[in-house]
Every structure is written in C-alpha cells, then in structure tokens.
C-alpha cells in the first residue's frame, strides 16, 4: 500500500499522568523504522497509545503529513478511529470470534467496504505473509508466532498512515522470536510510511530499526543509529543491555587522555574524542569536559598479581564480587575504583582460582578504552552515575 507514501510523522509529546511525565520529541521519515528502547515503565506504551489516539496529549502536537492529529493548545484531537494507524498490540488483540481472514479484513469492513472485496484484499495479505493455510482458523487455534504474524497482517492491511508495533516479539519463545524477527525484517521495509517499534530488546532494535531512541523515566536520553548507541551508550541501562562497562567522568588531561571517573578511579583512553566507526568523531574534548567512558568486559584482563610495568596503561585493583556463567564465558564482577564486569574463559577462572572476595588486579589497554563527551540531560543523571554492578 503506497496511498500515503511520503508522509512523515512529527510528534512533540508531553503526557502527564499523576506523577509520571512523558516528554519526547519524535520525528520519523516515510519508510523509516524508529525503535524506542527502554525499561518497563519508561513510557514506551504511553507514547504509542498517544500516537494512536488512544490517549490525548497534555501538551504538544502530533502531525502526520499535512494533518494535525493532536494539538493540545489548539484543542485539536483526532480520535483513534479517524487516524488510520496500524497498531500491533503486544497481546495481538485479535478478534476471537472472527476467522483470521475476517480479522485481516476487519479494517476494510469497518470503513465500509463490502464483504467480498474486503475478504479478497485480506486474502492477498495473508498470501503475501504466508498465512493462507490458517485463513479459516480462529485466533484461538493459532500459535504465538502465527498470532503475531496475523496481527501484523491485520495492521498492514488496514492501509495505515503510520505503523506502530508494541513489543512485537515479547510474548514469543526464543525460537519463534528469531523467526518472527526475520519476518518483520522482510515486511517492515515494504511499508512506505513511518514505523515505530517499541521494545526492550536491543537486538530487536539493531535488526529492525534505522534509528533508535532510548526512553528512560519518560525522557529520551539518547538517540542515534542502533550501532552508534550500542557502541557509545549514554546510560547505564543501555550499557548493561549491550554488555559494556560505562563510566561518567571528567577529562583531566587532554594529552594523556586521562579521565577521572565520578565514582572514583581514573582511566586513560587513547584518541580521546575519536570514536571508531563514528562519522561525527571530531568532538571538542578539552580538559574539564564531561565524558562517558566505555570498556568492553572482554577488553579487561584479570591478574592475581600486579602486572608488569610497561604493559597496559590502565591498571587498578579490586575485589571479586561475583561470578556468573554465560554461555561460553564467565562474567566476573569486580568491585574497585572503578568497578567493572570482566569476561574471561572458564579455563582462566580455574587457572586464577577466582573466588568471591579475592583481591585481583585489572588491566586494560588505552586503545580499548573509548571516551566521548556526553552526559544525558537532567533528571536521569542520578541513575547513571552509579557504577555498573549487576549484582547490586
């Protein structure tokens, strides 16, 4: 369906409900997929519901193409029924009393199309999505993965101006998730309008989205391409999701690349302000600039004795706080200045005889330490100044 091609979404969303305040400025170009990543309670679903017209703005505006859907100050509000939004609900919300075919034909019927035409079009969508064999089934007879695909087909078949997906893979088991992620990867680019995908799975965002917003406590704390966000997380939440150590600090020596960390300790970073794989790398990092420092757990080496001089520039001590077996490696949490997560092989754990409470030395090459100016806005600062410790 290309009836609405070329329309972008611009939303300046402020929603207040009790103590909760959601504030997000979102623009999505036609054909673009925006992922909104955030923990539970961050306001992701509220954002989608507001865009869909199931809730009103407290302040701000929502426009699609030339049409204003919501303008709190002007008193404009277009209800959901008139917005033509394709919303894929987290729990699918298929109509249990209708066949799969009639579910997909529902929007056309509701907008006045005859049964025959609506069904023919719906059958076309089912064929396109490889669902023709379940066309006569009731939703109750479908597997979770099929239900999700039918929900997507129903949303796409409604000829929406924008497509909204609320945690499309959350209710699926790991294997089905893989399969449906592939399906979405195939079908989302075919949609000509703006799409927004809400998720708390960074992998989903990486695979499906062109752009990524990180929403925490009702605010967008970071935006960028998924890979840039993953390499340079701005908050503890994202750093944990992608498995990185993240330290806020202050650049104290531009020449040596020394960053004093807010939570104690310091790290030397080679090439401060030049982030690999980033085109906007010319950053004005001068002494005194607030920095974020990331360090991959695999880039840190654990020693039971002080490492030799002349080896990596970053060396510090700590105490083993815990060990966790990941699929092929062991993640060691070390309390120190700074605290860090370190990934080592099971063999190394045995060789080093690592146990909780043991004092260790850590080292990391300056070339592995990535520092970039940054500090997320305002209120969330308090949450990410804490050091990374998954056991705390």
């Amino acid at each position, binding site marked *: 369906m290309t009836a609405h091609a070329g329309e972008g979404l611009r939303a300046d969303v402020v929603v207040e409900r009790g103590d909760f305040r959601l504030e997000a400025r979102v623009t999505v170009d036609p054909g673009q997929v925006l992922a909104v990543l955030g923990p539970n309670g961050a306001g992701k679903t509220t954002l989608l519901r507001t865009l*869909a*017209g*199931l809730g009103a703005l407290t302040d701000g505006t929502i426009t699609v193409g030339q049409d204003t859907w919501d303008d709190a100050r002007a008193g404009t509000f277009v*209800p*959901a*029924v*008139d*917005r*033509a*939004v*394709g*919303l894929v*609900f987290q*729990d699918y*919300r298929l*109509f*249990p*009393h*209708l066949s799969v075919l009639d579910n997909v034909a*529902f*929007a056309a*019927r*509701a*907008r006045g199309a005859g049964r025959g035409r609506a069904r023919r079009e719906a059958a076309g969508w089912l064929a396109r999505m490889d669902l023709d064999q379940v066309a006569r089934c009731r939703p109750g007879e479908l597997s979770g993965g099929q239900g999700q695909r039918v929900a997507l087909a*129903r949303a796409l078949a*409604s000829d929406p101006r924008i497509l909204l997906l609320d945690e499309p893979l959350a209710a699926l088991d790991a294997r089905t998730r893989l399969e449906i992620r592939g399906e979405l990867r195939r079908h989302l680019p075919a949609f000509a309008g703006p799409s927004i995908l809400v998720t708390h799975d960074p992998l989903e965002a990486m695979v499906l989205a062109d752009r990524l917003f990180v929403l925490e406590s009702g605010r967008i704390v970071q935006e960028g391409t998924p890979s840039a966000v993953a390499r340079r997380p701005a908050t503890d939440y994202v750093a944990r999701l992608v498995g990185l150590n993240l330290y806020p600090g202050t650049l104290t020596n531009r020449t040596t690349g020394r960053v004093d960390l807010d939570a104690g300790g310091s790290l030397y970073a080679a090439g401060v302000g030049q982030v690999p794989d980033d085109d906007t790398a010319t950053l004005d990092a001068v002494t005194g600039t607030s920095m974020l420092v990331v360090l991959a757990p695999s880039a840190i080496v654990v020693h039971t004795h002080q490492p030799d001089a002349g080896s990596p520039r970053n060396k510090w001590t700590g105490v083993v706080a815990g060990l966790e077996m990941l699929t092929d490696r062991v993640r060691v949490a070390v309390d120190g200045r700074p605290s860090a997560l370190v990934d080592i092989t099971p063999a190394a754990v045995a060789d080093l005889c690592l146990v909780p409470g043991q004092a260790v030395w850590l080292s990391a090459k300056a070339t592995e330490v990535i520092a970039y100016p940054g500090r997320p806005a305002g209120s969330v600062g308090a949450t990410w100044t804490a050091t990374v410790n998954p056991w705390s």
Partner: protein
Amino acid sequence: MGRAPWPLAVPAVVAVAFLMLPLAGLLLRAPWRDLPRLLVESQALDALRISLTTASVATVISLVLGVPLAWVLARAHFRGRSLLRALVTVPLVLPPVVGGVALLFALGRRGFIGQYLDQWFGITLPFTTAGVVVAETLVAMPFLIVTVEGALRSASLGLEEAAATFGSRPFTTFRRVTVPLIGPSLLAGSVLCWARALGEFGATIAFAGNLPGVTQTMSLAVYQALENDSAAAVALSLVLLVVSIGVLALLRDRWLHPGATL
C-alpha cells in the same frame, strides 16, 4: 472427586428430595387420560398462547431497551452511575405484586402517566394483553440487564480499542465486536428474562388482572384452576413444566456450566 463427607452429603440429599419430590408429585397426580379434555376446557391453549407471546414480546423489549442500558451502566462514565445501577435492580428484589401495584398507579387510567396516555392517545394498559407485557417486562428486564452488564464488564476493552484503531466507529464496534463477544451471556440473559416473564404472576394479576383469553397467562390459569378443579391445575402445570424443561435444555451448555457468567 472423593466421597462427600456426611455433613455435606446428608443435606445435599435432603435438598435433592426437596427440589424433586414436588415435581414427582405433580407427575404422579397427573390425570394423563383426561389431559387433552382438561386442557381444552380450562382454555389452556389460550393461556399458553398469551404466555408465550407476552413473554417473548417482553424479552424483545428487554433486549432492545435493556442491552443499551447495560452498556451505559458498564461503559459510560457519568455522575450517579452507581445510584442508577441500584435503582435499575430494585425490581429484581421488589415483590412482583408491589411492582404491579406501582404500575397501576403510574400507568393506570388515573396514573400520573396513564391519565395522559388515556386522554391524549386513547391508550389504556391495565387489563389488556399489552398490560401483561408491561408487567412482565418490569419484572424480567433487570435479569437481562444484570447478566449483560456483568458480561460487558468482564469483556476486554482492549478488543474494542483495537477495533477503534482500525477505523471502527463505536456503534459498529458494538455490533461487530462487543455483541459477538458477549453472545453467550446475551443468550443466557435472554432465556433467563424469558423464563422469568413466563412465570410472572404477581405484577400481572395486579396490573392486568385475570381475564381469560386477554390477560390470563398460564400462571394465572393454574392459580384459577386450583380453586375450582385441581386436576386441571395439574394439567396446566404439566404444560409449564414441559416448557421449563425445554428452557433448561436450551441453557444446559451455556449457562448451567460451573463458572459460566450469569
């Protein structure tokens, strides 16, 4: 399922006896041979026709008026909704004969509405078949409202929301989504309403009287027969019993299952 402990088993057996013995008595006393003659003489067919027609019309009226009211009680937000719900269910607990008397004072020829019906439109309801319908509707509609409202409350709002995002207007959503979803409860409520209307006695006799061929329903006919000819009363009762068992059979799957919504 284990064996029932005796403090439960004994009262249960007594309850079964209590519920079943009167029916057994009815069947034992039934004048099987004279049945056709008795039914003809006691104008049973007229009474049955009036009973079935009025109960059915009362059920249709209850559906047309009661389902929207149930929707309003379950979905609309306004001040005094709880009060309205309480008022609506008053006829549920009110002795039907009181309801009939109340109807007489409201819709009777001297009633505060009835006098205008009479003066302006020439409509009199008391002691007419239409009056029977009114009396039955008053008593039976709350059963439908309560059943349907409960179903609407437990039906998922999420599906109606989904329908709205696909461009379905509220009334279309009501027809295409809500009604099918509450279908079983709607059926159960209708049957319950119909059975209640069929068995109505107090309100009918107070408001519509007991005129054979006009307002005499089966229940009234049984009552009248009991005073003159008990054999005829038994015969009429048997007919009502058959109708009730028919209703029971219809309800068996939908309503009598444990956990089904009332």
